């Protein structure tokens, strides 16, 4: 995995699976977890799988057998309800055992529906109360700099979180403190609890706003693996001492055509028999 050598090389050197393979397995793991509960944020997991594939299998430095390894890049899941997606990625990365996905959301599981630091190895923060992750990220970036660490802090958050004032406070603070070790990714799936995000509280024009706040900003199709990989690469090597934002436009339910087409909802309904169909659809999409 990541860097069996000295922790300085990206995963891809040792991983022979393609990123598309990784994304497929992340989606598959997520669908299997969704089936355990018969519900869940499966449409979000499917939309963000490509970003997580690039994060965990191209960009980030970590040791799966030692999730607390000091030299790791940090990954903060601000949108805690996306935990199903992160568990799926961490299972694929070997940080969590695959058979544990059977326990997703069950009593006494290490994989609760809403991600929490005390429950799950590799989970760096407790989410659930949205709009918090970037604040922690600012502190982590400051702390890593104080320690002389070259690790990055990756933070995933959601377009709904753009509504929270705390997010913009952190965006200002990160620029003020010139946090060039911060790479934030915002999932623009244009969905939140009450409906399409742009209708609930319009945040556009987002790139211009973030640039005006002093960030290095890239907006990409979050379901185009090449584009996402290039954006992560560019974020890492960017020369200016400023924080980096990847605005990822994604499609809810991506990879399972009947979920892509379903009426869009924060909490999508999936019938009992559809989980198997979803796995089949993923498999079929893989061949093409």
């Amino acid at each position: 995995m990541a860097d069996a050598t000295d922790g300085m090389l990206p995963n891809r050197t040792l991983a022979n699976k393609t990123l598309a393979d990784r994304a497929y397995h992340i989606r598959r793991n997520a669908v299997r977890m969704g089936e355990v509960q018969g519900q869940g944020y499966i449409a979000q997991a499917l939309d963000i799988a490509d970003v997580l594939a690039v994060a965990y299998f191209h960009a980030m430095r970590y040791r799966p057998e030692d999730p607390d390894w000091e030299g790791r890049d940090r990954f903060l899941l601000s949108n805690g309800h996306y935990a199903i997606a992160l568990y799926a990625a961490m299972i694929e990365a070997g940080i969590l055992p695959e058979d544990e996905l059977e326990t997703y959301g069950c009593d006494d599981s290490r994989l609760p529906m809403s991600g929490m630091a005390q429950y799950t190895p590799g989970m760096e923060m407790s989410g659930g109360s949205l709009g918090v992750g970037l604040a922690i990220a600012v502190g982590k970036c400051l702390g890593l700099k104080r320690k002389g660490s070259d690790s990055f802090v990756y933070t995933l958050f959601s377009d709904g979180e753009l509504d929270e004032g705390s997010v913009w406070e952190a965006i200002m603070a990160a620029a003020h403190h010139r946090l060039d070790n911060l790479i934030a990714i915002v999932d623009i799936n244009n969905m939140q609890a009450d409906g399409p995000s742009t209708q609930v509280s319009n945040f556009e024009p987002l790139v211009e706003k973030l640039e005006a706040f002093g960030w290095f900003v890239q907006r990409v199709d979050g379901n185009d693996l090449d584009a996402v990989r290039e954006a992560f690469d560019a974020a890492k090597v960017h020369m200016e001492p400023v924080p980096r934002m990847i605005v990822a436009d994604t499609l809810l339910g991506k990879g399972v055509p009947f979920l892509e087409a379903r009426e869009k909802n924060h909490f999508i309904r999936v019938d009992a028999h559809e989980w198997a169909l979803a796995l089949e659809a993923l498999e079929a999409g893989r061949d093409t």
Partner: protein
Amino acid sequence: MKPKTPSQTTPGKPRLTTSAMIASIAAEGQPTKPAPFGHALVEVARKDAAIVGMTADLSKYTDLHIFAKEFPNRFYQMGMAEQILFGAASGLASEGFTPFATTYAVFASRRAYDFIHQTIAEEDRNVKIVCALPGLTSGYGPSHQAAEDLALFRAMPNMTVIDPCDALEIEQAVPAIAAHKGPVYMRLLRGNVPLALDEYGYKFQLGKAQIIRDGADVLVISSGLLTMRALEAAKELEKDRIGVAVLHCPTIKPLDVETIRREAAKSGRLVVVAENHTEIGGLGEAVARDFLLNGVAPKFRHIALPDQFLDAGALPTLHERYGISREAICRRIKAWL
């Protein structure tokens, strides 16, 4: 803190789901009413043009979407931004409107506390704060479990605090708090809400505690969901010839201490305060303080959530684990007698 150990789930055993967004506190077969808050608000709003609805991206999850659909021009979607939700509610109230502002109990009490304290309570604005997922009614863990909301809002001067028991009481409380001038925090049960008080011919009165049923051995003083559980426990314990009276106190503040004291002073009953709330700062401590100040000294016990971050999991599991299920209440009362 160290990660928990992997779970030992038995293969083939039916799994209990976490049930947070779709939390149902209705027992199987229990009669329910859909969205009692939303429908009741529509009714009062027809007669009172000053009423407006506001939410922070949770209209569907607080039953306010019913109001939004009926009165789209009187509904404000503030986005997932609880601080501006309550700040703006204060502003609307200062211009003569009566905002009903909804979110989850955790986000009103924790995220927006200062905004509510300063702009609503201190300015004494006519804002009705109506919040879903009160106490332990979500399986998502501490982020969604508002174990301390009553303590926080009780501690605010000017604030009236209501913890209704069921769909009937919510329907009756909505016009009552609309008619009351001043800030109100009301806990909300949403979705298909159980009916429990109808069989007792109950009628909500703001500021009043009421005996729902009488009993010779135990007096349960309770609010909200725990009144429903206490009534169920009382029926169970009746089979063992244990007489349980239930004194329901939906208005947590101002508390009807006269009625509570009068009932508690009646000879020899075990007094149990039961609340869907942390043991710190809620109904139990309010009642105990009043007893001490007034020399009322019954045998006193407290059913409440422990002072710890509660687990994630299925609600029935958690209610049993923390001693607030019907079965746990029965067991505990028997042990105390």
